């Protein structure tokens, strides 16, 4: 019995340190971080258009498309599709995405499409695409916006994030940032 009472008291006091003091300390440190630890936001003409880390749905031909999302980019219910690789329904979904992509990008061959553009991400909120996935969208965007392809290409190059320390991990492009820059092109 004494052991139980000691356990209760030790639980309560240690809770103060680990579940109250510790998170408050980190919240304090976060005040020095970007946007005071509330998540970095991206603004266009003074208006918040998104969170830098969170992907958004882009369906308009004028914009670079993000990857498919199993939850439709719902940032209050992140999830993947959890479909297995041999699931026939799943493969039909991927086929439908390929068909949609080809309709919107008539100048592209099927064999040029990187699989990441027709498969859902793990979080359903993937903010990035690879440079290859951006490049195959150039023709569509240049046509839709009536601007030269080289301008779009240059934008992709300047928004490509290099691997960590230049050598570790894949190259990525933040789709929202790229699209905001696209809107800023004149």
């Amino acid at each position, binding site marked *: 019995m004494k052991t139980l009472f*000691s356990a209760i008291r030790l639980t309560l006091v240690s809770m103060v340190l680990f579940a109250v003091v510790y998170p408050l300390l980190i919240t304090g440190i976060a005040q020095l971080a970007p946007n005071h630890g509330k998540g970095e936001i991206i603004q266009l003409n003074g208006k918040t258009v*998104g969170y830098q880390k969170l992907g958004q*749905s882009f369906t308009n031909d004028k914009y670079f498309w993000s990857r498919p999302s199993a939850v439709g980019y719902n940032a209050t219910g992140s999830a993947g599709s*959890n479909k297995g690789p041999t699931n026939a329904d799943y493969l039909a979904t991927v086929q439908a995405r390929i068909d949609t992509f080809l309709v919107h990008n008539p100048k592209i061959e099927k064999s040029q499409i990187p699989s990441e553009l027709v498969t*859902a991400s793990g*979080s359903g909120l993937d903010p990035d695409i690879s440079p290859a996935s951006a490049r195959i969208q150039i023709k569509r965007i240049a046509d839709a916006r009536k601007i030269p392809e080289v301008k779009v290409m240059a934008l992709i190059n300047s928004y490509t994030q290099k691997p960590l320390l230049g*050598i570790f991990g894949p190259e990525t492009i933040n789709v929202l940032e790229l699209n905001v820059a696209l809107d800023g092109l004149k």
Partner: protein
Amino acid sequence: MNNEISGIIALFVVTLLLAIPFGKYMAKVYTGEQTFFDPVFNPVEKLFYRISGIDASQEMNWKQHLTALLSINFIWFLLSMFILMNQGWLPLNPDGNPSMSPDLAFNTAISFVVNCNLQHYSGETGVSYLTQLIGLMYLHFVSAATGMAACVIVFNAMRNRQAEKLGNFYNYFLKSCTRILLPLSIIVSALLVFNGTPMTFEGKDTITTLQGDSMKVSRGPVAAFVAIKHLGTNGGGFFGANSAHPLENPNYFTNALEMFSQMIIPLAFIFALGYYLKRKKLAWTIFGVMTVGFLSLTIPTVIAEINGSPAIQHLGVVQPTGSMEGKEVRFGTAASAYWSIATTVISTGSVNSMHDSSMPLSGAMQMLGMMINAFYGGCGVGILNYYIFIILGVFISGLMVGRTPEFLGKKVEAREVKIAAIIAILHPLLILVGSALAAYLTANDTPMGWWFNGNATGWLNNPGYHGFSEMLYEYTSSAANNGSGFEGLGDNNPFWNITTGIVLLLSRFLPIIGPVAIAGLLANKKYIPASAGTLKTDTSTFAIMTLAVIGIIAALSFFPALALGPLAEHFTLFK
């Protein structure tokens, strides 16, 4: 792709290089030598003990240790149940999330107390900030420290020539929290915050996207939570998508940091054993066996994921970055594959890609990691699991050469071997009985009544072999106290909440009680000095022997189940 391979190799090397000095530090903490943090934490700990009425200098025998350990775990369970079932009206609930149903609260409370973190809810909608911090994050600390303390008790038994008393549980428990988990958590969460992980008490934000849609964004005190969920090898995510979520894991650096965080303490514990017992060679032998095991699971997984899926290739698109379903572009396939094995061998259970969508071979490797559950393993408990295999290895080798088996100068006799055998059999028993029951119900499409809304096949997210894998994975993850899942499985219902809850309880506490009891029994025995006839346990021969015991137990118990699930799916996909 080369950048991705170099990324994971560098990560493993850096983790290893830091684990060695950190293991030395941990050994110092547990032997009670002076360390850097004494001026800060000595007064804090004294205060805690005075308030709690605990004398931390009083040494305990193995039974007293277990009483203390189980009592405090019971308190945590009750407290967590209370918070989960009442979070709806309790404070710090800006998003207005409801209280949990009793069966979900039962599963969640047990799951976090036992360091598993099977999550049958989603963080965004299922819990309040109060629950995240006090109901769950607190358990991240103390459940990890429970395993670590139990491991040090076993260290003591191995170190002492002949002793009944094996140190003080509260001393090891609290020191694990204050000297090891807390300082590292502060460093890691600070790094996360500056890389874009939120740490705020504000609720959901609503914005208008560039295309003009309305978008709601869940936030919260994420950084502090994510740091300790990895350091304590807990793995329960703040958000539903766990560390695949861009706010939990914003970039390649944080991904490396979180992978480092989950591996550092299990790796350092092996070296801590070497310093603590002054048997560095034994530590390196254990490290060698575990690393061979880890790599033989990791390498096939990385290759399978990089090569991608033949079914996707068949549709005519290219897979320059490998199999991308369920993965994030910023991590890539190699780091996702590496993580999926790290998190399953180490019992973390956090994910940065969705295992349900992994290649079948990777799924098999992930499950094997949990079925063996002794390659590095969770905080402290990894070594406890491995200890069982050592005892069995010593016993079998003893039989083979016709000598009384001995381990570190102590005779291993019938009682110890019986306990070890029971613990070794318990793991496959819980996994296979659970999976068999669920598979039976599914095969007959049984109407489940109160247990599940609808017929049993309704809980599957995928048909065929993969559906079986979803159920097998769930029980494997529960029995290994891992917490990752083939998340397509519809698991928030009384059937899964209650059956996995029971598996969680048995598979956590019996594998702690067993090794502590064996160690306590051995510690009481007379010390026999090593002679020419002694079986040496720090040689490569014995290492291979242990690996063979692990391989035989896992292969014989689990191969049929794996053949029905992931292996059958593999051969369907690659026919």
